[in-house]
């Protein structure tokens, strides 16, 4: 078959995905009633798991349950906050998933019955499953910061679940006077998107540099070190001088402990700061439904088998994405995608009563310090022999002596990451 013919055929098929990477090569399940997989959560993990299961075996009935009609990606939301990107560009709908054979239920999953193998939604619908995949994301431990709650977050946004909160923080930065102080308060580990707060500081500084050059960003961290620290510190200095100041937890007794959203003050054990804008990112745990379904442990996250992501608490339920305890992988978008693919393979194998094969995992995470200054961390992983950890085989950070041209290209590859990741999710 000539190249040209294949291409024309592809055009005729009208979809690049239809001829996408080969499936797992399973024959359709015949005889028995259709196997049912329910997926809760329409973020990275949920959409990709649903698509990969449908692709591997179209005879499996895949239902994706997601309350919101649109998803705002957390990745690239820092560019919205910095002003270089419109929020509409990080907004995606689920309308293309039906073409992959996925039944999308736009309703909130309110109850999981692990024994009866059933999911209930807010409108009273009951969905039975053979296997349930949950990619529910995070919620906040509001109680860890005195005076901070959902209402206070309308004045001092966390902007750590993208959408309304992202737009709110952007609006506040636009409204503030030049010369103001922004406090950014990142939580202790583990939390969603470890380099995210530090990319955000750079994006805000990028905005200030051009529009409010007398303003300052103070990062009051709960931690003493952070992701890509050397590269961020280098980038801050090169591009923003001393506009960004990072204070480790050791110097403040562990970061921000209390806020007063009315008085616009932020307090550590030692100091109070009067702020123009406060971006408070509280400590996190698995989303509420994971707790309600008895899938979490004392840490607030979900213990899982690292080879299949099946819950260690309830069988036939798999948990992927930020809600899981995935030793070795960061809580990143790419990690959620790799977990989704491995989980999809495990689920399809199990439904065919076959043992899953050898796994492969990867992470690729970009941070944009300035429009021509990108950095990254990447890694390839395998499951450790005793399954207690996902082990890094190779990878690493952008070299600290990378050329300006290499840093510029990393931004373009970051945008490609965004386009291709969202195509994997929603395309």
């Amino acid at each position, binding site marked *: 078959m000539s190249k*040209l013919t294949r291409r024309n055929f592809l055009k005729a098929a009208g979809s690049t*995905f239809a001829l996408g*990477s080969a499936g797992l090569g399973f024959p359709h399940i015949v005889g028995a009633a259709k196997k049912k997989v329910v997926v809760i959560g329409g973020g990275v993990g949920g959409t990709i798991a649903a698509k990969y299961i449908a692709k591997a075996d179209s005879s499996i009935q895949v239902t994706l349950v997601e309350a919101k009609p649109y998803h705002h990606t957390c990745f690239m939301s820092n560019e919205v906050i910095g002003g270089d990107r419109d929020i509409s560009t990080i907004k995606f709908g689920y309308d293309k998933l039906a073409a992959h054979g996925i039944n999308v239920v736009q309703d909130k999953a309110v109850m999981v019955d692990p024994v009866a193998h059933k999911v209930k939604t807010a409108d009273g619908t009951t969905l039975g499953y053979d296997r349930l995949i949950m990619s529910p994301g995070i919620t906040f431990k509001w109680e860890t910061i005195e005076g901070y709650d959902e209402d206070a977050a309308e004045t001092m946004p966390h902007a750590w679940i993208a959408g309304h909160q992202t737009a709110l923080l952007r609006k506040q930065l636009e409204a503030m006077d030049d010369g103001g102080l922004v406090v950014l308060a990142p939580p202790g580990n583990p939390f969603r998107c470890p380099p995210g707060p530090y990319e955000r500081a750079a994006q805000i500084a990028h905005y200030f540099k051009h529009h409010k050059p007398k303003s300052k960003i103070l990062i009051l961290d709960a931690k003493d070190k952070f992701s890509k620290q050397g590269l961020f510190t280098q980038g801050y200095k090169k591009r923003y001088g001393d506009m960004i100041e990072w204070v480790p937890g050791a110097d403040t007794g562990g970061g921000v402990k209390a806020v007063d959203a009315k008085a616009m003050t932020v307090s550590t054990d030692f100091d109070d700061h009067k702020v123009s804008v406060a971006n408070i990112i509280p400590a996190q745990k698995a989303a509420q439904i994971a707790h309600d379904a008895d899938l979490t442990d004392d840490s607030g996250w979900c213990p899982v088998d690292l080879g299949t992501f099946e819950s260690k608490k309830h069988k036939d339920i798999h948990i992927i994405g930020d809600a899981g305890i995935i030793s070795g992988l960061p809580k990143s978008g790419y990690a959620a995608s*790799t977990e989704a693919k491995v989980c999809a393979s495990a689920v399809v194998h199990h439904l065919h009563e076959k043992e899953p094969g050898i796994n492969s995992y*990867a992470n690729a995470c970009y941070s944009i310090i300035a429009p021509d200054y990108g950095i990254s961390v990447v890694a390839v*992983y395998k499951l450790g022999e005793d399954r207690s950890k996902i082990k890094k085989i*190779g990878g690493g950070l952008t070299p600290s002596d990378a050329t300006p041209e290499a840093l510029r290209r990393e931004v373009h590859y970051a945008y490609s990451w965004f386009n*291709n990741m969202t195509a994997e999710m929603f395309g």
Partner: protein
Amino acid sequence: MLHKVAREALLFCVFMLLPFSTALAGETASPSMLSDTCLGCHGPGGISDGPATPTISGMSEVYIIAAMLAYKYDNDEDKVEAIIEADPDLEDVEFFARTSTVMDRIAKGYSEAEIKVIAKHFANLPFVAAEQDVNKKQAKAGAEIHENHCEKCHENGGSSAEDDAGVLAGQWIPYLEYTMADFESGDRAMPKKMKKQMKDAHAAYGDNSVADLIQFYAGQK
């Protein structure tokens, strides 16, 4: 005794498998398991949505392996040549130094056996050209340069994978620009023939020849 029999049986299997398979059974993850990890950056089906990351589906197996080995071993020619030498599967692979932003770090996470599996997987998938606007005047000029200086190795307007050169036709413009900039700066090694042709093209068509070629390739479907 049993032990010896088993060992001989195993050796026999190894011997039988080597010439035919890219990896010993059970040694690597499946082709889709390994290759699906690439798609978050290279796109569903290995077809990139751009703006810069290249489409890797439809490239030749030999080309992908050569790139991955150069990345994995940081352009250590002796090391890569020794690996090529030792593996009959790699007979057609040629070493050329090349730089990258992230791929040199990522390639270190995969074994040679895995790289072969991944290369074969993407080589067997169809290439789909990027939808992008090109400068028609430049593309037309580029077409002539291509015909006279590039077509012999980059067959069918740069769309063929069978020549084991990179698939240029329908790749994203920024990617083509980076690649050509690296060739010109010496960050990426050119085969001898290419070096000569590039020099001749410069002499015949002037300083815009590379930019014109890029517009030509970018517009190919």
